[in-house]
């Protein structure tokens, strides 16, 4: 089996999905089922104090018994906020320690603050968390995060929510070549071909949210992403042919054509 192994646990799907921006919980659930994802991200937020006590809870719709929930630190701009958020998440999820760390540096671009990210990762790892970490596509930052013990590095393909696709495949390539932990493209995928390209580059997985949730038909896009990730992975494993500007080697036999002018003179 070609499994994705994260922190010693095997997953058959290499597509990780977020649960935000859907119209309602029903659409969330249907899209996530169509994606085939086993690891799904959730955010941690203050409960609405005036809420209707019977309001449905995301964890009832997507039970931790069925999915590996990956609590994130979306919206955190400091080490302290990120660390506290994940401590709360671990308590909320009964001691579950696999988390997605992101420490943002700018509300406009949502670009990560790598210095704060490294500090937060160090604290969390000391506290026993298994940290999957959102990072810029800097190979040195990725290496440092791996060195301090992150269980997966998750470089952006382009900015969060931008749908711009893979803007720097060369940096991703260097990160992949250097890494000994899974490399998961997180952020920037816009459509199925982007996911396939990430996998063809040799990424171990792709994490996305907006590309599915903001599609005109999220459930159909979730299905497309599932196939794209599988197709990209298979193409990577198969090993693509070499690129050449042109080739004098057609796919059909050169000899035996009925073309005139080739017969030997008698």
């Amino acid at each position, binding site marked *: 089996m070609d499994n994705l192994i994260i922190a010693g646990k095997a997953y058959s799907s290499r597509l990780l999905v*977020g*649960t*935000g*921006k*859907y119209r309602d919980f029903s659409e*969330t659930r249907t899209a996530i089922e169509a994606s085939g994802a086993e690891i799904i*991200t*959730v*955010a*941690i*937020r*203050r*409960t609405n*104090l005036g809420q209707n*006590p019977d309001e449905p*809870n*995301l*964890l*009832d719709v997507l039970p931790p018994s069925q999915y590996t*929930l990956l*609590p*994130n630190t*979306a919206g955190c701009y400091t080490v302290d906020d990120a660390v*506290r*958020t994940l*401590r*709360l*998440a*671990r*308590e*909320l*999820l009964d001691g579950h320690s696999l988390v997605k760390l992101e420490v943002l540096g700018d509300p406009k671009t949502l670009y990560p603050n790598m210095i704060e990210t490294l500090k937060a990762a160090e604290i969390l790892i000391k506290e026993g968390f298994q940290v999957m970490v959102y990072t810029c596509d800097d190979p040195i930052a990725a290496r440092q995060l791996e060195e301090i013990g992150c269980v997966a590095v998750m470089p952006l393909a382009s900015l*969060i929510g931008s749908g711009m696709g893979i803007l720097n495949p060369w940096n991703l390539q260097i990160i992949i070549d250097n890494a000994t932990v899974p490399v998961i493209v997180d952020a920037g995928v816009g459509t199925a071909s982007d996911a396939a390209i990430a996998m063809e580059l040799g990424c171990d997985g792709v*994490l*996305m*949210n*907006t590309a599915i*949730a903001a599609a005109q038909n999220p459930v159909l896009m979730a299905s497309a992403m599932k196939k794209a990730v599988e197709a990209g992975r298979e193409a990577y494993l198969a090993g693509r042919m070499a690129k050449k500007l042109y080739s004098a080697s057609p796919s059909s036999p050169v000899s035996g054509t009925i073309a005139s002018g080739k017969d030997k003179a008698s």
Partner: protein
Amino acid sequence: MIQLIINGQPRNFSVSNQTRIQKSDHDGVSLNITQLLEHMALQGKRIAVERNGEIVPRSRFDEQVLTNGDRLEIVVAVGGG
């Protein structure tokens, strides 16, 4: 009456209303986290609680008696990417 800062909002809890606040051994009243959650109709919900920056494990909701000025964060999981 004690004031708690819950999710950044000051809230007063007085002995005279229906908060099921019990008499403590001391002169005032005491309110533990279990009672607070009941009052807020959050008992049994999938939530996590932080008190003054420290996680309060669910198993210790009964024994954590709140004091005036405590800062609480009560969180849930929501959709996110």
